[in-house]
């Protein structure tokens, strides 16, 4: 970039002023001599008191990018990316910019609330709320068991607090949104390589995204690295039923039939193995089960796959050969939600095949391939004289990780959408919901509401009155992330190990508290106060202890790199064999397919019904889950750009007399709703695609209320047999002009 010389303002004005008049006259545009460089462009340019404070973004909960928050004249102004972060490297996504405006959203919860018998909410003091909740919870635990209590939240940096709290109570039921999002992928990579790898996109020469769309399910580092790789000549292939935003910069869009990515991938594997294009040395040294895989995969030639996935066999051959030819600097993106995170009955097998395809070209722990990200080990509370509670020796109520139930599911994620079922069955009696909104983000809201209503005690800790909060007995307002100090975090680690921290940027505007204060308060009344006798600063100081970094230093910089950097070279896998497992004995023991095998989707649209479609969904870059729809700026963008529309293939739409912008009735066996359509050539004809961030029905969320619909309104409660994920794309809907 050329712009590196620093020009002082005064020098700049001096050099510029001379030429102004001449230029103006030459252009014949200025005749009244008012051209003056010193004029202010806007009144807001006036001198202001500006503070710049590093912290961590919470605009999506997952990426937690390093940012600088700017406060101008006491009011939050803007954010910039912290250039030192591995994660976002100086950039911020639209949600990050806009989410800070939530600080001033009038819909925020301003004090603790208690539900009245009429279903209204009235203010209650913190002391009273904590006391009442503790009393009720003690009774529930006495009448039932500690295991009848659950805690559900997004897996944020502060999730150890939830585990500590629940373990202290004696409950294993700490749950994340994972089963509605990514658990098929995680379980498959765990079974294959013993962990979830990261992608070295920047150095890759051939990148395949299978349903993954980092441009809209924004992960800044990924999209930045893809752009950089492309600049260096890498090819980008996007396999997706929809022409995604990532496809917009791809070299090739493969419009796969929904639910048949597995067929395409099995055929790729077939070509690479049959033609001997794999990395022989890597397979000999670091894998097990290759011979069995070879036999299994022989039955999946591209000639077989093309009929299932609608990608011509020539393209499958070509992509498989190109992919292998770039080995080891080629990769199939490890994926997220789209494609095989929690979408289909065959998602687990699809994710297994992705893991295996990466392995057969030997790209694990190679530059331009997949690698296990560095995770600096944080210091623990125990080292500071705060003993940890024992992990309860009981199974999770949702059956996660329990042989015979959902053996491949993980203990730490659990199965979120099992909660209503368990509540209805009387197995869960009380719950805490922390910054999550299962009523909107879990399938079949009617059933979710019924389940959560059944609970004897429901406490929601959030900043806004979500659908779930609006069902709760108590709503406790947490201070907004810009108003509180929170955990030291290692999420920014990958090829480097980094520490970041959430710190207070502005003073709390309302009667709100940070989570630690809320939990500490509760623990006293619950008789587990001894586990919560520390402050956030003490906790963070202990977390930082192993690195020789002080909290002050970290708060000043926002991001500090610690420890060693990632180096190329295979490391032993955390699988039972210590190797990459093409054949998994463990899966076999659990009664699951030990090797990837074609598996038809659970449901398919009726080819003879021109109104029948599979309902797909996905993110738009400006929205996160259900939490940003109420952001006035982002919702305004949705409306301005007419983004609250159902995508439908133009040819299919015209066959049922639809024009662009028409309103349609979408109907599945459990729900229906009205939405306008976007006719496009960029979508597989068998599916319709719905943006996932809308359909807010909490009347407390005044901006988002009633705008758009949500795929969960159409999705049955389903549990995949391996990990119990939600199978969120196994929905058939009828679409007709309203």
């Amino acid at each position: 970039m050329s712009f590196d010389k620093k020009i002082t303002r005064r020098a700049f004005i001096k050099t510029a002023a001379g030429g102004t008049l001449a230029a103006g006259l030459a252009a014949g545009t200025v005749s009244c001599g008012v051209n003056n460089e010193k004029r202010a462009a806007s009144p807001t340019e006036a001198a202001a008191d500006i503070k710049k404070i590093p912290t961590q973004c919470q605009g999506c909960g997952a990426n937690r990018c390093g940012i600088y928050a700017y406060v101008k004249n006491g009011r939050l102004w803007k954010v910039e990316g912290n250039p030192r972060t591995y994660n976002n490297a100086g950039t911020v996504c639209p949600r990050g910019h806009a989410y800070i405006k939530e600080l001033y959203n009038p819909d925020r919860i301003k004090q603790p609330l208690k539900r009245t018998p009429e279903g209204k909410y009235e203010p209650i003091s913190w002391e009273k709320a904590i006391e009442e909740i503790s009393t009720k919870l003690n009774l529930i635990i006495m009448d039932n068991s500690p295991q009848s209590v659950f805690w559900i939240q997004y897996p944020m940096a502060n999730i150890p607090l939830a585990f500590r709290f629940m373990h202290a109570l004696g409950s294993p039921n700490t749950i994340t949104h994972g089963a509605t999002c990514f658990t098929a992928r995680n379980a498959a990579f765990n079974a294959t390589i013993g962990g979830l790898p990261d992608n070295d996109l920047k150095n890759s020469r051939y990148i395949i995204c299978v349903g993954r769309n980092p441009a809209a399910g924004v992960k800044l580092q990924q999209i930045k690295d893809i752009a950089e790789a492309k600049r260096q000549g890498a090819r980008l292939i996007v396999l997706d039923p929809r022409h995604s935003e990532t496809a917009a910069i791809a070299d090739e869009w493969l419009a796969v039939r929904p639910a048949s990515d597995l067929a395409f991938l099995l055929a790729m594997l077939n070509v690479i193995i049959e033609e001997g294009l794999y990395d022989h040395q890597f397979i000999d040294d670091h894998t097990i089960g290759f011979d069995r895989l070879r036999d299994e995969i022989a039955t999946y030639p591209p000639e077989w796959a093309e009929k299932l996935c609608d990608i011509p066999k020539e393209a499958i051959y070509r992509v498989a050969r190109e992919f292998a030819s770039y080995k080891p600097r080629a990769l199939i993106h490890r994926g997220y939600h789209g494609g095989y995170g929690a979408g289909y009955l065959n998602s687990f097998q699809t994710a297994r095949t992705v893991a295996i395809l990466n392995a057969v070209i030997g790209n694990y722990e190679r530059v331009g391939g997949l690698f296990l990200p560095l995770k600096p080990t944080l210091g623990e509370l125990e080292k500071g004289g705060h003993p940890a509670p024992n992990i309860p020796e009981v199974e999770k109520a949702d059956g996660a990780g329990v042989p015979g139930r959902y053996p491949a599911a993980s203990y730490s994620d659990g199965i979120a959408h099992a909660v209503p079922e368990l509540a209805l069955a009387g197995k869960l009696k009380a719950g805490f919901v922390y910054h999550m909104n299962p009523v909107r983000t879990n399938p079949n809201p009617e059933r979710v509401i019924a389940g959560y209503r059944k609970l004897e005690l429901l406490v929601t800790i959030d900043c806004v009155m979500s659908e779930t909060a609006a069902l709760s007995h108590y709503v406790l307002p947490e201070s907004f992330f810009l108003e509180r100090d929170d955990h030291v975090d290692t999420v920014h680690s990958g090829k480097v190990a980094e520490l970041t921290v959430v710190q207070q940027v502005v003073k709390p505007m309302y009667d709100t508290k940070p989570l630690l204060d809320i939990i500490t308060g509760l623990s006293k009344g619950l008789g587990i106060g001894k586990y919560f006798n520390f402050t956030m600063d003490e906790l963070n100081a202990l977390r930082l202890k192993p690195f020789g970094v002080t909290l002050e230093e970290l708060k000043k910089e926002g991001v500090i790199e610690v420890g060693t950097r990632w180096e190329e070279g295979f490391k032993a896998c955390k699988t039972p064999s210590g190797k990459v497992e093409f054949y998994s004995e463990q899966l076999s023991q659990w009664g699951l397919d030990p090797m990837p095998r074609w598996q038809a989707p659970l449901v398919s649209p009726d080819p003879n019904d021109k109104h029948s479609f599979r309902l797909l969904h996905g993110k738009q870059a400006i929205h996160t889950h259900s939490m940003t729809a109420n952001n006035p700026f982002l919702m305004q963008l949705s409306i301005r750009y007419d983004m609250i529309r159902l995508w439908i293939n133009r040819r299919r739409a015209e066959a049922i007399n639809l024009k662009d912008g028409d309103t349609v009735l979408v109907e599945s066996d459990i729900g229906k709703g009205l939405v306008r359509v976007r006719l496009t050539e960029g979508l597989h004809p068998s599916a319709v695609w719905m943006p996932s961030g809308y359909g807010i029905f909490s009347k407390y969320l005044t901006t988002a209320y009633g705008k758009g619909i949500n795929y969960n309104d159409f999705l049955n409660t389903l549990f995949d047999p391996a990990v119990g994920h939600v199978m969120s794309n196994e929905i058939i809907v009828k679409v007709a002009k309203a």
Partner: protein
Amino acid sequence: MIYWSHYITFYLFSAGISAGAMIVSLTSGFINRNKYERIVRMGAYIAPFPIMAGMALLIVDLERPQMFWLLLTTFKYSSIMSVGAWIISLFSIVSILYFMLNLPKDYLRLSSMARAITMIKSAGFVLSTSVALYTGLLLSTLAARPLWNTPIIPVLLFISAVLDGLAAISLVLLLTQIGRKDASASDKFMHTVDFMLLYLLSLATVVFLVGMGRSTQSAASALGIVMSGRFGALFWFGFVAAGVAIPLIAAAYRLLMKRQGQWFDFITASLALMGGYILRSVIIEAGQTAQAVLY
């Protein structure tokens, strides 16, 4: 996005009436002052006022009406609006002088100063035609707005302005019944001019439609905005049918059949005025949404 509201439509419409009334008054006076005195006088009486109301609305349409004076302390030849503000200011002064000149009593004591009268009339002619032209040039010089950016727009609005001025004169004469006794000569003159202007307006409309339709893609799509949807009905029924075709047929009928009828005249004059307003309303509103750069 609509930035200029119907205030601007009314501003252009009223400026057209004022300029048109002055043009008709001066022209008829030039041809035969005695024969057409009621037209000359009524034109002079009308000219100063609509434009003043229009200016008031223009100021109201400014986001900062309190800073209106900046328009009059700046002269920028590259800005049609700046030039127009000056022309309209001068027109207002001259039209008031012309108004007073035509009052029954000679307040200005100019009756003996022939040169001054000629100067006022000459200035009035130049300024009134300039104002009528300005209302179109204000729009047609914007390359960004394909519906406006065509030489036919000033022609269209000029003809329409004179027509509206004539219609206003005719209407007020009918309502007040001033000089009704010896109206036949002036009525015939007005009917003839009316027909000619309506005929020219219909020709200009054809040129506008055909010219735009056969022009660039952006012009064609701009025309599409006018001819269909929200503006379609207004344009076809409000302007083409009610504002041009019906008055034209009526004017022809009057001339050929030598029919008279005050109600008849009243309705055709009202329709012509309404058509003039609708024409400007459609052009102003639709023109703002039309794009030169298509994405």
